[in-house]
């Protein structure tokens, strides 16, 4: 089981990375106006980069002999995680979904945006595997591209959220005193408006768009990250080795990077893996309301909202994207639970 997953990730991961990463970077640099291409390649780039990092980490972790302590911690976590069958099964589902998303153009011959006017609102058939929608677009193709967008935006947003939340948490916890007070009070105010209302206000002022969507969603969970990271920073910052480092004149930045952050890795990992599922739900919800990803670009939430209008004629239009969202979020939740159990952290769901 362990080996299968490593090979599933490493081999195609590296190949795809070298094949597509340069092109997606080029597109990001030179085609800033092609919104759809930009985001699909951006999502694509992010995913391949993450897979690449995972595969490198796994490969390194097998060879690395030098830093015994770090290796011990990672290996322990991985072994505990690998023993958890549910987490492993959900990880397999996620890897499979990520590959489906990345390889979408090679799996289905249909364009997600192209209408087949001769085949409106059809059921399951050999040409259109999951039928077509009211405009004759292939539901399977739209679903694959929807997964790609959802995963890309979801993971990017959680990544940004983790970085900003951790930054605030570390600054507040490490410097303490007035800095801590100001940061935490500001975050409390930010947190005292329900996220959906903030999103509505920002969308009303600035309009919709992928970039804005990512930024808004990435600010949704700041408080949870900041609060927990702050707690674990405060637990370490007065330990002897940190005081010793300070006494011999090492700068704050170096202390934070070398001594503080490694001690916060496990809550960061747990929180970010637990919040991906929820973030994808938020994005789907905003798209359902028409405030997220804009049509004609395929999005799972948008497909559901369209599907509701045609509930009488074609059930597939709503069931396919709905079940897909459920599958993605369920897998991320189960995987996140697994990571939490593996790290034996005292965080509760």
């Amino acid at each position, binding site marked *: 089981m362990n080996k299968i997953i490593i090979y599933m990730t490493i081999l195609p991961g590296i190949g795809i990375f070298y094949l597509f990463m340069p092109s997606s970077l080029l597109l990001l640099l030179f085609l800033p106006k092609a919104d759809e291409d930009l985001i699909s390649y951006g999502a694509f780039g992010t995913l391949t980069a993450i897979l690449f990092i995972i595969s490198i980490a796994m490969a390194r972790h097998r060879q690395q002999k030098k830093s015994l302590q770090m290796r011990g911690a990672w290996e322990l976590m991985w072994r505990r995680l690998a023993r958890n069958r549910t987490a492993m099964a959900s990880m397999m589902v996620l890897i499979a979904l990520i590959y489906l998303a990345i390889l979408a153009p090679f799996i289905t011959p249909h364009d997600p945006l192209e209408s087949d006017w001769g085949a409106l609102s059809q059921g399951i058939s050999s040409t259109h595997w999951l039928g077509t929608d009211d405009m004759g677009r292939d539901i399977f193709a739209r679903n694959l591209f929807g997964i790609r967008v959802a995963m890309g935006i979801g993971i990017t947003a959680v990544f940004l959220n983790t970085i900003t939340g951790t930054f605030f948490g570390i600054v507040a916890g490490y410097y303490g005193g007035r800095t801590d007070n100001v940061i935490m009070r500001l975050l409390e*105010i*930010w947190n*005292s*408006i*329900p*996220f*959906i*209302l*903030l999103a*509505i*206000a*920002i*969308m*009303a*002022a*600035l309009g919709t768009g992928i970039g804005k969507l990512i930024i808004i969603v990435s600010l949704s969970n700041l408080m949870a990250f900041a609060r927990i990271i702050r707690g674990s920073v405060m637990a370490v910052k007065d330990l002897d080795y940190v005081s010793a480092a300070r006494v011999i004149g090492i700068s704050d930045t170096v202390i934070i990077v070398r001594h503080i952050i490694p001690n916060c890795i496990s809550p960061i990992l747990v929180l970010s893996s637990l919040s991906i*599922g929820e973030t994808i*739900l*938020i994005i*789907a*919800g905003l798209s*359902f*309301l*028409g*405030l997220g990803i804009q049509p004609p670009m395929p999005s799972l*939430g948008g497909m*559901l*909202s369209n*599907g*509701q209008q045609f*509930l*009488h004629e074609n*059930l597939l239009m*709503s069931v396919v994207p*709905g079940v897909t*969202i*459920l599958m993605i*979020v*369920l897998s991320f*939740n*189960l995987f996140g639970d697994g990571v939490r159990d593996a790290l034996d952290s005292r965080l*509760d*769901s």
Partner: protein
Amino acid sequence: MLNYTIRRILLLIPLLFFISAMIFGILKLTPGDPAVVLLGDRATEESIELTREKYALNKPLHIQYMKMMANFFTGELQSIYYKENVIMVVLKRMIPTLELGFTALILALVVSIPAGIISAVKRNSIFDYASMTTALFGISIPVFFTGILLIYLFAVKLRILPASGYGGSMFTLDGIRHLLMPAFVLSFTLMASTTRITRSSMLDVLKEDYVRTARAKGVKESTVILGHAFKNALMPITTNVGNQIARLFAGAVLTETVFAWPGVGRLAVNAIFRRDEPLVFGCVLILSVIYVVVNLMVDLFYGFINPRVKYE
């Protein structure tokens, strides 16, 4: 306790000030002439001039903010689409939203707490597995997908419940028939997470020494579970419910959209599409106030059930 309550209520004032300033600030980011934004695209030169005067738009920001709040409270702030005082427009939609929200909250608690307790007490039983699996799906399924599936089942196939809309007050038969599906859909996520947290905190508490002591004394099992264990498990449950209320708000906006429920959430979303900026301001502000007040009530309840909390 009384002191603490009063202090918390007084603390609401600066909080509400910051919240309103933040919403005002966000809406200020709108590109274009603010007078045109407030009036809509078809405004005449004269009315634009009048609006500039009314909202002090050529004055510095803090005066604009105070003017905006003054206009909001005196009812001068008009919705572009409804051509009516924003507060009135929002308040008219408030009753359906409150009916939906409170029914969902009560439904969630009534179902999930007993389910969580039974799962914990009869651990690894069929009931435990069934309720935990359901709860896992409950936290992973999008609110609108549950809604669409229920509409398909009960309105399209079985034809026993209306697909959408509002049937009047919840104390009439038609009102209840319309309320059933949206309330269940909205409560589902909260129900799922509360069941999970009830089960896990009950399991923690049941391991404690005082529970064993109570059993050894020969206290009735039901008293042990409800009196000794549940009372102590109530704290994490309350915290969780408090944390989930923001999610309940998000769920309410989505549920109102799926079921065409005439509530404030849907009003806010529609106001964005109608480019009705004053109404967006009103909806977001009023809903935020409700959210803050509900959160305060949860905090006070927390102090009430846990006398160990220090009232600092």
